[in-house]
């Protein structure tokens, strides 16, 4: 599995101009790529399309502004 991430990470780094990696970084790149992708995919997805990301970051608003709309019919 790590070989897949090695290929992915190398291509990603090349596309984004991150080409001068040290040998140590090249060694670590697949594991770091795997960590990023697996962690992201491990976040449970929310079917309700009305639930917005928390982007206001105002703690005073956190409790009172949680969305309470019912799910959309087609979600």
């Amino acid at each position, binding site marked *: 599995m790590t070989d897949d991430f090695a290929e992915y990470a190398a291509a990603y780094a090349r596309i984004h101009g991150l080409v001068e990696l040290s040998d140590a970084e090249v060694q670590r790149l697949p594991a770091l790529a795997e960590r990023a992708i697996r962690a*992201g995919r491990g976040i449970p*997805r929310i079917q309700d399309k009305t639930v917005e990301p*928390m982007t206001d970051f105002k*703690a005073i608003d*956190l409790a009172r502004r949680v969305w309470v709309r019912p799910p959309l019919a087609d979600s």
Partner: protein
Amino acid sequence: MTTPLHELSITEASTKIRAREISPVDLVGAFLDRIARFDDEIHAFLTVDAARARAAAKTAEEEIAAGRWRGPLHGIPFAVKDNYFTEGLRTTAASRLMADFVPDYSATAIVRLQQSGAILLGKLNTWEYGTGTGAVDFDLFAPPAANPWNQEHFTGGSSSGPGAAVAAGMATFALGSDTGGSVRLPAAGCGLQGIKPTFGRISRHGILPNCWSFDTAGPLAWTVEDCAVLLGALAGLDPLDTSSADVAVPDFTAELGAGVAGLRIGVVTNLTADGEAVEDAILADLDRAATAFGRAGAQLRAVELPMAPAKYRGITTTINWAESFSIHELDFLDRRELMGSALRDKLTTGFMVRAADYLAAQRRRRELTAATDALFDEVDLLLSPTTYRTAPRFDEPEAVVAFTTVNATSPYNLTGHPAMSVRAGLAPNGLPTAIQLAGRFFDEATILRAAYAYETELSEPIPRPTLTDA
């Protein structure tokens, strides 16, 4: 027996200063002597500002003598994590990228403390930019801070210098910053009291960011009362910080002595997931604390968080990786060779976080915040351990990472609720253990009240660590 100057709490020192039994000049001198004597071993400080500290102490002495006492922080020496901007004083964030940076303004938190008369001794060690992977790789321009309880052990991070400095008696109190536990973890590792207030409670203006969504400033001190005094001085709306909350600031010391009778305390039961474990000594001290609260009249009940803390961390890490990468992108692409390996590895991970995953994390965060907040309909406080192990040895790298990544701190970074690490005991290995108390948004007063009861009435006092000359 007379308490040495470096072991006086804020309230003890302040009482003596106001009564003119001791002078701020003597107090500052005592701390500078401690720093000179022991910091070659502890590495708590990156920069010491002795000349200005002595000058400020002289000014404080003259003001107090003239009857212009400003309050309980007047003449009290402190130090700050080196990610706080300090006007005219080098601010490095422990990074070679900023080795010679001198800001031309101070963070709002520093300004507020100095307006209250507190005296800045210097800047404290940290992980690079207050972030990383949890690893301590000994590849920054200064060695990592050592734990005053046992210098072969880690302090906890990322506010490693604040934890070490206060425990070692090199400052009466310190400021840190908490993104995933970085005030509470070194507080727990070094046997201190440390509070992460509600997100938005203390201005972040002038603090180098790690992750905008979670960064929260907070104090570390030896006593709960000192944390209450400090929170009162630090809290409040700051127009310079867009995340700052416009919420009234109470006198956090007013209800400290009210006890815990009648408080509903939820004891968190789903602490671990996926093979994680909590050390026996820490579970024993948690049980002891719960029993003590119950005997003192608190109503205890078992409570499950909506998910185990590890699952919260699964969400906070994706957000944190992505935001840190956004903050450091240009340096990462152009000057990566100046970074230590922990920061470089974190940013390399952040480099590959997908936008959809970041947004999924922020959406899930909104749901989890609501679900966690709903627990406070049933209880006033949530009780858990802070860490799942005592501070590990530096030569146990996996344990060092686990100290940071397997614990109970991140749920309250995700949600923004206030949470405090409270010294609980000493494990058989001689290192401190800690409990964590979390409360409702902006209800730090109830946390402090329970913590104060635990510290002063419901637990055995713990002596400070003893340092000896090398």
